[in-house]
C-alpha cells in the first residue's frame, strides 16, 4: 500500500500520513489512531495533525518497520473515533483595529463586509487538531467561498485573540506571534492557561461557534 507512510521528523519523532480527503470522517480515523498509539510502549505522546498523526517516542525507534506496519494496519482497519465535544461560543468583534484585513478580504472576494461576516460565522467549526502554539485550534469547516491566499508580507506579531484565515483554514491566535494570514477580527478568550488542568481550553472534537458582536466596516 502506498497511500500511507511513516517518516522520521526527528530522531525520536515519527509522522504517519495517508492520502485521503480532508474532511471530518477521515480526521476521525486519525483521532482513533492517536488514541490507540498513545497506549503503545515507548510512545510518549500521539498527537493528531491535519489528516496525519505524530508520535513522540522515548528513544530512537529500533522497530521502525514494525511501527509502520501497525500504523498502516490501524489505518486500513478504518477505525474511527467520533467525539461529541463541547461547543464554545466565542464573541467576535469583526473589522476595525482588531480585524485590519476584513475590508480587503471583502474586496478581493467581491462580497460585502456583512456577507463575509455572515459566511464566516455561519458554521460550527470542529477542532481537528490542537497545535502550532499552545492552545491553538486547527478548525475544519470554513466555507470554500472564503478561500483566500496568504499575505505576501506576514505580520511580525499578531496579538493574542486575533481571528484570521488563509487557504481553507481559520482560527484564533492563542498567544501573540507572527502570522501570514488575513486578520478578520478579535476575541477575548484564554485558550491556554498553564495553571489550569487541562491547560488547553479545547481538545480535538470540540466545536467553536463565532458570534459577531460588532462589525466595523
Amino acid at each position, binding site marked *: 500500500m502506498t497511500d500511507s507512510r511513516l*517518516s*522520521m*521528523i*526527528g*530522531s*525520536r*519523532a515519527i*509522522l504517519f*500520513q495517508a*492520502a485521503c480527503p*480532508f474532511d471530518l470522517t477521515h480526521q476521525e480515523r486519525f483521532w482513533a489512531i492517536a488514541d490507540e498509539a498513545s497506549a503503545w510502549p515507548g510512545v*510518549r*505522546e500521539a*498527537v493528531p*495533525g*491535519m*489528516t*496525519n498523526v*505524530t508520535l*513522540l517516542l522515548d*528513544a*530512537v*525507534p*529500533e522497530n*521502525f518497520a514494525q511501527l509502520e506496519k501497525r500504523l498502516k494496519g490501524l489505518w486500513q482497519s478504518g477505525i474511527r473515533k467520533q467525539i461529541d465535544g463541547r461547543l464554545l461560543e466565542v464573541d467576535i468583534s469583526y473589522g476595525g483595529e482588531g480585524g485590519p484585513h476584513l475590508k480587503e478580504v471583502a474586496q478581493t472576494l467581491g462580497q460585502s463586509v456583512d456577507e463575509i461576516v455572515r459566511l464566516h460565522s455561519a458554521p460550527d467549526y470542529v477542532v481537528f*487538531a*490542537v*497545535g*502550532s*502554539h*499552545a*492552545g*491553538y485550534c*486547527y478548525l475544519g469547516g470554513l466555507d470554500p467561498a472564503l478561500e483566500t491566499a496568504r499575505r505576501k508580507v506576514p505580520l511580525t506579531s499578531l496579538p493574542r485573540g486575533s481571528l484570521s484565515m488563509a487557504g481553507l483554514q481559520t482560527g484564533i491566535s*492563542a*498567544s*501573540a*506571534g507572527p502570522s501570514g494570514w488575513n486578520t478578520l477580527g478579535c476575541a477575548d478568550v484564554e485558550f*491556554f492557561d*498553564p*495553571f489550569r488542568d*487541562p*491547560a*488547553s481550553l479545547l481538545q480535538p472534537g470540540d466545536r467553536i461557534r463565532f458570534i459577531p458582536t460588532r462589525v466595523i466596516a
Partner: protein
Amino acid sequence: MIEILSIPPLATVQDLGRHGHWFEGLGQAGVMDGLSHRIANLLLDNEESAATVEIPLTPARFCFRTEQAFAIAGAVCGARLDDRQLPAIWAGVAAEGQILELRGIARGARVYLAVPGGVDVPLVMESRSTQLREGFGGHEGRVLAAGDCIEPIDDTWCTLPASGFNVGLPPLGRAIDSEVEVRVLPSAEHDNFSIRSQKAFWSTPYQVTRLCNRQGYRLEGEELLWESDVELRSHGIVPGIVQVPGNGQPIIQLADSATMGGYPAIGAVIEPDLWRIGQARPGQYLRFVQVDIHQALEAESERQDYLASLTTSLVQTRELLRSWS
C-alpha cells in the same frame, strides 16, 4: 545569590524542557545546547535536568552577593572572575563581592551558568524552562534583565578544588572550524524535492543568517525546490526539523519550535547534534550529513557514553579531593 549587573537580551532560565504537553500545542522549550547545560550541571554534581541560565551573546556581568559555587560551560567567551581568567568550561567558588564577567564570544554562541541544585524558579507544568511565547516558566515568564537575582536551590555544594575544575568538550566542527557538521535523517517530504535539490542539501554548506533565535535558524544556500502537486497539510514538527518555505531557503526549527507546521520537511537533525546548532553563529556554515536510524541510535549511545565517562571521572576527582582534605 548572584545579582545580574548587565546581560544581553534573550538570556533565559532553562532546563531540559517541558514535556508531555505537546498534545496541547505547547512546545518543549528547554536549553538550545543540552550538552553544555549537562556538563555545567555535572561539574556541580547537580541533576542533569537542573535549571541553568542560558546566555546568548555577551557581555554580561554578575555580582556574587554571597559566597557561591557556580559553573560555566558552552561558548568560549573570555570569562573572568575579578582579575582571574577562566577557561570556557569551569566550576569553582566565588567569594562574596566577586564579579563574574563574560566578555566577547570567540567561539560558540551560548554560555550556560549553573548554580548548586539548579536555579531556583517555580516549577510550572513540571519544568523550570522559560516559555517565551506563552510568557510563563523560568524567571517570571520572561527574559532576564539587569537587577534580577539568580538564586540557587541548594545553599551547600559539592567538593570543588580551590583552583576550580576544567574539562574539554568535543569539537564543534570537524576539520574546518567555520563549518559545523550535523547528522540528519531524511524527513517526510525529502523525496518530493527535485533530485538536484536533494543533492544540494546533502553536499553544499548552508549559512546561518542573522535571523536566528531560540525558535529557529533561517539558512541561506543552494535553492531547494519542492517538486510535487501534493497538497501539504499541517503536521507535527519538532526541534531539529529542516523545513523549506516557498523561497527555497531552509529553516531549522529549534528549542522554541512550534508543534505543527505546514512547510515541506526535507530533513531532521538528530537530537545528539542539536547542541552544535545551538552553538552556531550567524555567518557560520552548517553541513548536513545523511544518516539512517541505525546511525542515529549509535549517536545517542555515543553521547550517553561520553556523559557517563565524564560523570565517573568527576566522581573520582571529588573522592580524591575529599581524601586529601
